């Protein structure tokens, strides 16, 4: 990537994107957007790099640390092991990692409380489902994605109870791949046959197929990570967004304001790090009552009045 010339008095921030680089309409693009926000709002000097292979991650991190950047971001879970070593080699540089936890004195770990966002979309699913049966399609059967499912279930169950409806059903499917939309669509068909009328996807590109399948069956889909509302207006009910840009921008703000702290920072509903997306694309699907109710739940989560469990009791990550 581009190396900025240092300007006196300005903080210098670098971002090492995860493999794949810009253009993924997801983590990398959001990280880039957050960096641009920080440049605009706080005047930080920025640089970013796109490693061609995972084996290059470490060299990119080292490179920016050696160039004297004040804060170096590692975007994505996969860089945890590289960052662990780089952080040890450059104790005077501050680092931050998105979506993973690295336990080091100079690293801030920026993670998301996906279960909170999933709770919100689960509640909306309960309000929109006529059959009382909703589904979720996951890319892989892993604990990380369990948080999505568990939050979704809690929101769904609680909202049905709130509406005075009998308990409903949440069906869960696993695609086994994040890159097989054809399979995603097929699994959605299977769910539809079971009477599912709202399906939440946490499955990357496989999710494109979930949305397509929902469209075909005339049911609702819920997007994930980035705002996918525009993908199929009328079908995508909402998206459970993980605001990587917010996390990155807020870390930059802390740096500029001199209150950057290492350790784990979990972004949730309270700070806008996760949430549900409402825009012109899904506005027709969400009634004023729905919106009001979700805003209320948001407030209760943000205030701590409502606690959302990350994992079912007994499951550890």
């Amino acid at each position: 990537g581009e190396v900025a010339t240092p300007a006196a008095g300005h903080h210098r921030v670098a971002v090492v994107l995860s493999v794949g680089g810009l253009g993924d309409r997801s983590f990398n693009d959001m990280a880039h957007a957050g960096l641009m926000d920080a440049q605009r709002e706080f005047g930080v000097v920025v640089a970013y790099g796109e490693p061609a292979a995972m084996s290059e991650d470490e060299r990119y991190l080292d490179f920016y640390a050696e160039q004297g950047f004040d804060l170096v971001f590692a975007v994505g879970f996969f860089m945890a092991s590289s960052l662990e070593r780089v952080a040890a080699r450059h104790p005077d540089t501050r680092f931050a990692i998105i979506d993973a936890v690295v336990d080091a004195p100079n690293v801030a770990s920026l993670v998301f409380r996906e279960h909170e966002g999933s709770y919100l979309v689960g509640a909306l699913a309960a309000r929109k489902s006529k059959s009382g049966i909703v589904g979720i399609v996951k890319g892989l059967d892993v604990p990380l994605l369990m948080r999505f499912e568990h939050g979704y279930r809690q929101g769904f169950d609680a909202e049905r109870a709130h509406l005075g409806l009998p308990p409903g059903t949440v069906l869960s499917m696993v695609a086994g791949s994040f890159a097989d939309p054809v399979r995603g669509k097929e699994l959605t068909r299977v769910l539809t046959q079971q009477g599912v009328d709202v399906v939440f996807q946490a499955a990357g590109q496989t999710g494109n197929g979930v949305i397509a399948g929902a469209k075909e069956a005339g049911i609702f889909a819920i997007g994930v990570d980035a705002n996918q509302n525009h993908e199929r207006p009328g079908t995508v009910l909402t998206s459970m967004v993980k605001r990587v840009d917010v996390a990155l921008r807020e870390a930059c703000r802390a740096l500029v304001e001199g209150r950057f702290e290492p350790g784990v920072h979990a972004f949730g509903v309270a700070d806008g790090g996760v949430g549900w997306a409402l825009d012109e694309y899904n506005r027709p699907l969400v009634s004023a009552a729905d919106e009001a109710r979700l805003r209320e739940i948001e407030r209760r989560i943000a205030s701590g009045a409502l606690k959302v469990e990350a994992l079912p009791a007994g499951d550890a990550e």
Partner: protein
Amino acid sequence: MSAPLDLVDATLREATPLLLATLGGVLSERSGVINLGLESYLLAGAFGAAAGTLFTGSLVLGAAIGLAAALVVALLHALVCTRTRADHVVAGVALNLLIDAATIAALVSIYHTKGASPPLGDALMERLAAAKILGHAPITWLALGAVPLVAWTLARTKPGLRLRAVGENPACAESLGVSAVRVRVLAVLAAGLLTGLGGVYLALDVGSFSKHMAGGRGYLALACVVIGKWRPWTAAGAALGFALLTALANQLQVVTHVPDEIPRMLPYVVTLVVLSGIVGRARPPAALGEPLGG
């Protein structure tokens, strides 16, 4: 809603791209060209169909562009495998990796995104839904119809006889005035057409192109060719068998809770076991993989 009928429908949908690629593989391999490139034809067909439909706004034109893209890739493959002495195995693998990267590069340059093309509009999706025949896409019926067609072409037509002859002994065919290069190029182009149609199905089924979309179906198709002993009917049977397996695994997931690694690994375990069990008369075409003109 009857479960067995659901299973049949799901199997047919799973089978469509696999069946087409398998038949393409049969034609290509019977002519003597080891076809590891099927995955790239699927990808090219899918990308071409998505981009073509988005660009022209017409499903027919989009499908045609998908087929054309697959044919271009197949032509490149055919030329490398027939006009040069290149190793078919490595050529096929290199082609797959190349086209995989190329479709991503094209996504970036056209749509400025790395994951998936924009989805087809609602009007197009409705037209697709309206085009269904007995609940299935026309391509599914084409795929089923292609099985007897390919079998009959191989057994009962002059091009079919020549194709088999070239796959067994190109020197002999040449000595009787049959151009082995021409026959193989045409066979690979036919594979490109069939498999490309499978790719078109993938893209239109989902309503967009996304990277790595073929998901190993080209490789699985080659396994079907070999498990089916290079014969159209039996290879198609293998493809339907794998499709049924996948459909079953999908349906079972809702009911019980099978860990998803098992169904994912299943086709390959089945492939290895079945391959190992094939004995006796399972003989590949004698000149399979043999370069021409040495």
